[in-house]
């Protein structure tokens, strides 16, 4: 994992030069997203160039309005960027699996999300009419594929839900629901799992369980995870933390601890106060 280390931290305030021999699962180049027009125009993402290493857990942090959710939505093909490009690199799907997202139509994007991405949301977002098992296998179901029973067993045991498989979401606790959502994200062995504030709606214990599970999926299943969070404890589970402010990547940290993340946030905030006076904020 150390071998596939990405490039050095980006120069402050500047963009990152395209990476050459970096094994990325997802990469973005000059990714820009603007809302509105004229005076009311807001830049949510300002020419972001970055990459997310395969088999790594990357956390994206930043204050509210820094563009971290927008970045994730654009990476996942849920939102259409105003400019720039996003690549998804498949390893398990063969070498010809490098896909550029911006040229794809809705159906192709949908199939891509279904087969090669996994999602974990803050609000769990399980389908209330389906049982835990049916929720977990839904992505495969939608693709018309049968679950690989051995792998499904691994995932289910990893999230510890074996005795809850036939319950409906309403019968599960928040932590259990989020673990179902994690299992759902992993079941199709996606190229990347996007987790949007996965612990935001959980107490610290349930949150730790979910984070532990995401961590193990990276360590044991070589899963790639991109997680948006504003919680430094959550970020401390990551291999690498990207800090976003005003739509730009402003800092990066490897092998973070909660304390180091907090330090970095504080220093960014004091720097940010200078900038907000100029009048930015998406």
């Amino acid at each position, binding site marked *: 994992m150390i071998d596939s280390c990405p490039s050095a931290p980006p120069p402050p305030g500047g963009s990152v030069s395209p990476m050459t021999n970096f094994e990325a699962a997802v990469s973005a180049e000059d990714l820009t997203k603007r809302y509105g027009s004229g005076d009311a125009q807001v830049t949510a993402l300002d020419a972001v160039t970055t990459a997310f290493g395969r088999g790594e857990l990357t956390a994206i942090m930043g204050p509210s309005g820094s563009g971290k959710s927008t970045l994730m939505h654009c990476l996942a093909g849920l939102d259409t960027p105003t400019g720039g490009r996003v690549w998804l690199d498949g390893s398990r799907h063969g070498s010809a699996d490098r896909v550029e997202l911006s040229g794809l139509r809705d159906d192709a994007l949908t199939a891509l999300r279904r087969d090669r991405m996994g*999602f974990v949301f803050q609000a769990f977002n399980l389908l209330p009419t389906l049982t835990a098992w049916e929720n977990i296998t839904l992505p495969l179901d939608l693709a018309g594929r049968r679950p690989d029973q051995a792998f499904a067993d691994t995932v289910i045991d990893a999230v510890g839900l074996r005795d809850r498989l036939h319950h409906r979401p309403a019968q599960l606790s928040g932590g259990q629901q989020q673990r179902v959502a994690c299992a759902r994200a992993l079941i199709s062995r996606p190229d990347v799992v996007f987790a949007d504030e996965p612990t935001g709606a959980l107490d610290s214990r349930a949150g730790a369980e979910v984070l532990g599970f995401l961590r193990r999926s990276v360590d044991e299943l070589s899963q790639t995870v991109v997680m948006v969070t504003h919680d430094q404890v959550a970020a401390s589970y990551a291999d690498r933390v990207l800090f976003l402010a005003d739509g730009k990547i402003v800092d990066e940290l490897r092998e973070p601890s909660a304390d180091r993340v907090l330090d970095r946030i504080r220093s960014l905030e004091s720097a940010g106060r200078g900038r907000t006076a100029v009048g930015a904020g998406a």
Partner: protein
Amino acid sequence: MLRAMLRDLRAHLGRVAMTLAAIVLGVAFVVATWVVSDSAAATVGGGAARSDVAALVQAVRETSAAAEIPADVVARLAALPGVSRAEGVREGYAALVRADGKLGTTSWPDTAGTDWDGSQRFTLTAGRGPSRAGEVALEAQAAAEAGLSVGDSARVLLGGDRSDTATVVGVFTYRAAGREFDPAVAYDESTAAQLLRNRDAAPGAAPGFARVELFGPDEPAVVAAARTALGTGFDVDSGSTLRADQARAAQSDADVIRKALLAFAAVALMAGVFVIANTFTMLVTQRTRQFALLRAVGARRSQVRRAVLTEAVVLGLVGSTIGVALGVGLGLLAMRLLPVDGQVAYAVSPWAVLLGYAVGVVVTIVSAYGSARRAARVSPMAALRTDAAVPRRSLVLRTVLGLVAVAAGAAMVAVTSPDELTEPKRMLAMAGAVLAWVGVLLTAPILVSTVLAPLTRLLRSPGPVTRIAMRNAVRDPRRTAATASALMIGLSLVCAFATVGQTLRDDTTEQVRSAVPESAVVLRAAAFGVLDDTVLATASAVPGVTGLAVPRWGAVDVVSLRGAVAESGFTSLNPAAVGSAIRPKVTAGSGDLRRGVLLSEQIATRLGVGVGEQVRFRFLSADAAGQPKPVEVAVTVAGVHEGGDLLRGQLIDEALLPAGVSGEGDSMFAVGGDPAALRTAMEKAFASRPDVLVQDRGQLVEDMLGPLQLVLGLVYVLLGAAVVIAVFGVINTLALSVLERTRELGVFRALGASRGLVRRTVRRESVVISLYGGVLGIGVGVLLGGVMQYVILANPVFGLSVPWLTAGVALAGMGLVGVLAALWPARRAARADILAAIATE
């Protein structure tokens, strides 16, 4: 508070529009019904009334000798002071021959011939009135049926076995002065005098007048003068009395129509109540947080309740206004489309408008009341939660009530069955059926979770579309049940009537099949006539005939040895033909008429008479002076037969009928040799007899069932309104469910469901709900029809015939309804915004 609610209404115009649609349709149907019946009454009673007749003179019917008015009486009336003109009206048997050489059925032939005059009786729609021999004018409908127009040559069958061929010079519509039937054929005065006779008139009988119309400026004076001049034996009615009578009759006809139509409107409204109530429930559910906010900032429960009710009143008023306008339009359109001859009068009474508003507002308030109460019970705390829900009513009470109603209804039907059906028992059984029907409506939500939900598990790995669609359909049983119930209301009644119709059809077919051999050629009297001995003679003379049954029907009292009397009828037959040309269904004893009579099952049971016993038949004959006189004949009971429409009452050897007693028959059945050859020979033999139809037994069945088909067709069309309203209900439910599930749909899309898949899921949910309503409606309808045919025909309840065709069409229709109702909601669901759905607030 109120402003907040009204703003809210305006903000959700889409949802509001669906509720409005249900109100509008219900109201429109009621108003249209009222307008049609008012206009029908005005058309018959108002615009079409004669204004020119001062008085109408008719011979009193009881003294049969004086039924016609002689020419000298007319002359005397014409000479009376105040009478400007006396017009004697002739009437006689006249039947127009159709293009196929047989008689038509649009007019009553016994009085279908008349004489042309310049009064308001005739309104020409084409050509001119007849003025000399060889010319004839035809009534519009009769002309249309016969396919004749001005310039054509018309053949008319006349009384006393004559016929006439004349050129059509005019086509008219008719206005009656009294209550006479519309004639079909009008000749000029002298030709009419020469040609018009009664059906069986002897040649040369002196023609008189059926009635005399008197004209004159002073109506009372004319009436008084005529009464004084004529004395007893004649009725003299003033023109105004006649008009009042006509208006009254028209009014009562219109009332009958109105009642029938309003019954259907009530059914449509009932479906409407379900749709409106369901829509309101959904509207309230979706605004739970808003109500909670209102409560949190200090609104009292009663204020929230009032606000929802105010919303209902506003919607009711708006919906009623549109509905009334639409209803008036529909009513007038229906009057245009109805085949009414002459001037159509349009009438829109204030009652129609008032009723429309009353129905619209009351139904909406009643529908919204439950929702209003529940909205008021929303806890202020709900404002703080994202997953807040309106408190649900428990289904227990409703289910218990429903089950009790079903059980009680079934019991009411069951207790009536062992014995003979009397009128109160019929009422009880019917009431039981309706009660059970209501019970099923009440238990519909429980059926959703106890029948439909397990069904979703029965389907092994059905794929995500079906699984999610089914789960969504059973997710809110009350909502699905209300939607399906609205469908069930119309559909179950359609199927109930279809079941009665099918049972009647099967019974009749079975009866005819068992009584008439397939090879038989059936001779039938056209135009409400009878087959007389000349037909018998001609038919017997046809080569190849080996058996000819001539059933003739008359009245007879059956008297048992114990003195019990049963009023009934007899059918006389030639014993030789029994078993070959006609086959009574013998249930006991022998079918041989040479051994004695065959009692009908009903009479045998009622009198308690068995095979081999003696009974007396009491016929009504006439003595030498023409006075009725009973004649009794003692007969032995050879057997018992089933009875029915073809062989009614007691079967008796025609040779046993006492002198002066004979029946009348409108059918004969001939067998012999090759059926096709026999039929050709019969057709040839009766080619010159427009009053005799040559048919086979299939056509006989169709003829017997024709009126039934017509009535059923009308019933289906009228019940269609209820089904249309229910379809709006399905659209409503889906559209609102989709709105409610925006978030879920977004997630579904984010996880990789394509737009097409989302559309398919919503469509399948719609089809599941529609089919549930369809299956429920058809099932309940067939059972309801079973009770209906039991009440009407006294068949056993399960002696019903399932109307497979109607049921199949209905089920397929429901599938189609499901697909169509999902069109818009599915598109809407597919457009769900993924980002908005997963955005965390």
